[in-house]
């Protein structure tokens, strides 16, 4: 466990940029900025096309930390668990869960809530609840 500093201003600015990106995709392409959906278009079965656009979006995401570090001359602070079983289990559950529920933090959380979708509200409240419960068990029941 590593404590992190509460950063309301930076987080709100970053959140606003995420919103700007979501609005750009809707204004120009007429689509939801759901990351799991966009990544899904890169995977088989290729039923709805749009592979090149999805690849361009993902390439933009991946380039972001490189550009950030180049401009600010400061590294992106990160603490990633080195428990590979935990990371593999987490990744699998996130992938399966996003595919089943049809969205993730961005699609349901940001875009869905912004469209006032009841379905996305239920999804967001559900993954928030199980997320809080999981970290509680991980850190205060098992981890101590």
């Amino acid at each position, binding site marked *: 466990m590593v404590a992190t500093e509460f950063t309301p201003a930076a987080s709100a600015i970053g959140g606003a940029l995420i919103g700007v990106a*979501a*609005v750009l995709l809707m*204004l120009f392409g007429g689509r939801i900025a759901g990351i799991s959906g966009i990544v899904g278009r890169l995977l088989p079965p290729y039923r709805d096309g749009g592979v*090149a656009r999805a690849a361009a979006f993902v390439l933009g995401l991946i380039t972001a930390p490189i550009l950030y570090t180049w401009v600010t001359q400061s590294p992106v602070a990160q603490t990633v668990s080195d428990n590979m079983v935990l990371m593999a289990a987490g990744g699998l559950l*996130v*992938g*399966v869960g996003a595919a089943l529920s049809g969205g993730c933090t961005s699609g349901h959380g940001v875009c869905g809530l912004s469209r006032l979708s009841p379905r996305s509200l239920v999804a967001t409240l559900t993954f928030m609840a199980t997320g809080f419960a999981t970290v509680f068990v991980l850190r205060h029941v098992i981890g101590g």
Partner: protein
Amino acid sequence: MSIFVHAIAGLIFGIGLVISGMANPAKVQNFLDIAGLWDPSLAFVMGAAVIVTFLGYRLAFARGAPVLEDKFHLPTATAIDARLVIGAGLFGIGWGLAGYCPGPALTALSLLAPGTLVFLVAMLAGLAAVRLLGSRA
């Protein structure tokens, strides 16, 4: 043009994740740890993102159609069913375990932490498995 817009949107989205601190799984897990090292930052990320998106969507929808397409391609599913709730429930467990959801994990790919790579491979396998099974059903 559409490909260019997607690349720029991805870049802005990724910069937003980096600036907000969400590319750091520890910060996400600390948001989910009210009983411990609570860091409420994620609420500010979500709050600001939803406000900007809510307002921006209104402007976009007011045009009647997107700039580069004939019509908006909005999700058609409205059912609040077991698949939605179970999926979101599993998603939250994975999110809590790793501190990553799809956007931040992809954005952090270039930082090359071993845990990020393992998470991404497993996530892609999970997404692909459900899509393949779902398309056969």
